[in-house]
């Protein structure tokens, strides 16, 4: 099934300067009972966005109207813990299309790439500078060019190159689907099964 192609993204950012943000914070387990992929954005960072009383927590950055945009600037080791893909669905459903950090947990990274949410890894220094800039000036825009693998900080003109697996890059740019690709390989998989059963 064709997916949406990943275009050049130009947007303001939401800073979340915390380390080790795990997937239980992104979407708490008690919201995982749904059987579809939609609607998880309402409960993104639920226990940080809302107080125990159910009121909005105005101290949390997502509730600060100054900040908005399609890019989440996160802290180190983002997305650790549970493998729940619901975490990526929630971030995407909320409206983000890219997450920037200096370090992502492995399963989160795979899940993000499989859902058209671009995980961008930059070094700690660059991340700190971007965090500071965005916190100070919420109108700060970035331009993400996946084709060129560059993240440009528009007001400063600084440009940072980021790495991405070439196969995954092509899938995102062309809107290709991994499962279609694997399905096209069925005869190869079947013959692999035959040789393998002879082996053991």
């Amino acid at each position, binding site marked *: *099934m064709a997916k949406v192609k990943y275009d050049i993204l130009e947007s303001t950012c939401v800073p979340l*300067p*915390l*380390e*080790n943000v*795990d997937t*239980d*914070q992104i979407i*708490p*387990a*008690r919201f*995982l*009972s*749904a*059987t*579809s*992929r939609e609607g998880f954005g309402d409960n993104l960072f639920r*226990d940080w966005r809302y107080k*125990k009383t159910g009121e909005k927590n105005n101290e949390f950055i997502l509730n600060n109207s100054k900040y908005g945009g399609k890019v989440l600037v996160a*802290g*180190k*080791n983002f997305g*650790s*813990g*549970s*493998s*729940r*893909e*619901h975490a*990526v669905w929630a971030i995407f459903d909320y409206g983000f299309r890219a997450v920037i950090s200096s*370090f992502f*947990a*492995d*399963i989160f990274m*795979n*899940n993000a790439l*499989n*859902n058209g949410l671009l995980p961008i890894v930059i070094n700690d220094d660059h991340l700190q500078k971007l965090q500071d800039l965005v916190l100070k000036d919420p109108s700060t825009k970035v331009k993400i060019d996946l084709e060129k693998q560059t993240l440009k900080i528009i007001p400063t003109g600084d440009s940072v190159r980021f790495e991405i*697996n*070439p*196969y*995954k890059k092509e899938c995102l740019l062309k809107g290709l689907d*991994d*499962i279609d*690709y*694997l*399905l096209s*390989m*069925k005869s*190869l*998989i079947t013959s*692999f*099964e035959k040789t*393998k059963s002879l*082996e*053991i």
Partner: protein
Amino acid sequence: MKPKTLFDKIWDSHVVRSIADGPDVLYIDRHYIHEVTSPQAFNGLKERGIPVFRPAKTLATADHNIPTKDQHLQIRDELSRNQVEKLNENCLKYGIELFGLNHSKNGIVHVIGPELGYTLPGMTIVCGDSHTSTHGAFGTIAFGVGTTEVEMVLATQCILQPKPKKMKITVNGNLHKGVTSKDIIMHIISEISASGATGYFVEYCGSAIKSLSMEARMTICNMSIEMGARGGLIAPDEITFEYLRELPSIPGIDNINVSISDWKKLGSDPEAIFDRELEFKADSIKPMITYGTNPGMGMAIDGSIPLSDVKNGKASVSFIKSLDYMGFKPGMKLLGHQVDYVFIGSCTNGRIEDFRAFAQIIKGRKKAANVTALIVPGSKKVEEQLASEGLLETFKNAGFEVRQPGCSSCLAMNDDKIPAGKYAVSTSNRNFEGRQGPGARTLLASPLTAAAAAITGVITDPRNYISEKIS
């Protein structure tokens, strides 16, 4: 031939195709599914109009979202009930074996897989659950995946996966009394941090590891993900083979001795190269407890909370936020601190040996009045063992209630939630904010430490309660 690690041997023999500059197409021998992370994958198959490619290689259970009381009654929560029913429907429709709620083989996916003989050395195993690393104890490549990858496996029995780097962690020497395999892995994580092994697959080696039982090894491999590793594995040996020989049956295998001779070849070659190697001494490990909100924030039970997470520097915002959530201060000691709840169970410590360990300290004593205890066996089989070994009686006499199997308070999807602000000594694997319920404060520890807290009502060194012969 180039020397290979155990990991390389299994991985390389499962690569259907290597994509240039891309991931490998990896064949999966065993796929476990549960109610929470599978429904969207089945929806994907429906939308594509395709069947499950190899239904016999997938095994299903309901564990995450089920009650641990009155399982014979209808599940009260509508969404949970719907999710469990969806699993039943999907398994029936696609011809997948299901050990669902109330089935005699039901239990936590990472407990039943091994105990029913579905997890075997040399396999590649995935499940939409990060603690799939548990199965690595048998010398398998086992790791957690997302729902899109669950759909890949259902559709083609393969996933696209980049090959991780390899790390060797050696633990040599003897453990002191009162120190368990849970303490070994918690010690390692506290040393290398909750992200210290991200990007790696870990092989655990050394005399301290090789002397452990299969159940203790599963506890270690289970928590590999808590230091960021994709998984962890241990080379199969006589202890592994003995465990498998004692199982009543192993699906698909008639003569286990033939298989064992193959499995013996799996161990890492002596000259095999790892990307990173670490060593620990078993005799320097003490009973461990966590003080923060990630599993890397752990310390010896008689220690003090560090003043900062930055060596000789100012504490990070995350560190301060974490201690604030826990109601702790830097430099504080935890021994003697009040405990409100004790949870024993989960895929980390919900096996029979864990309950035997718990019982060693509980036997002949009474539960502290201020403690609410949740004792949750990992499977129906473990529940039966508790009864046949007289442990149910021991727990009852000490004032404990035993629940029915499930993931329970480990992730608190069901009613087994720890109330906000309360302290829970938990034998599970994660102490994240709100993991055991909104506002709950989790202190991860071994079953022995949980038992000591359960009878005293405060954080207690389990070594005070065990004789020298038990270690």
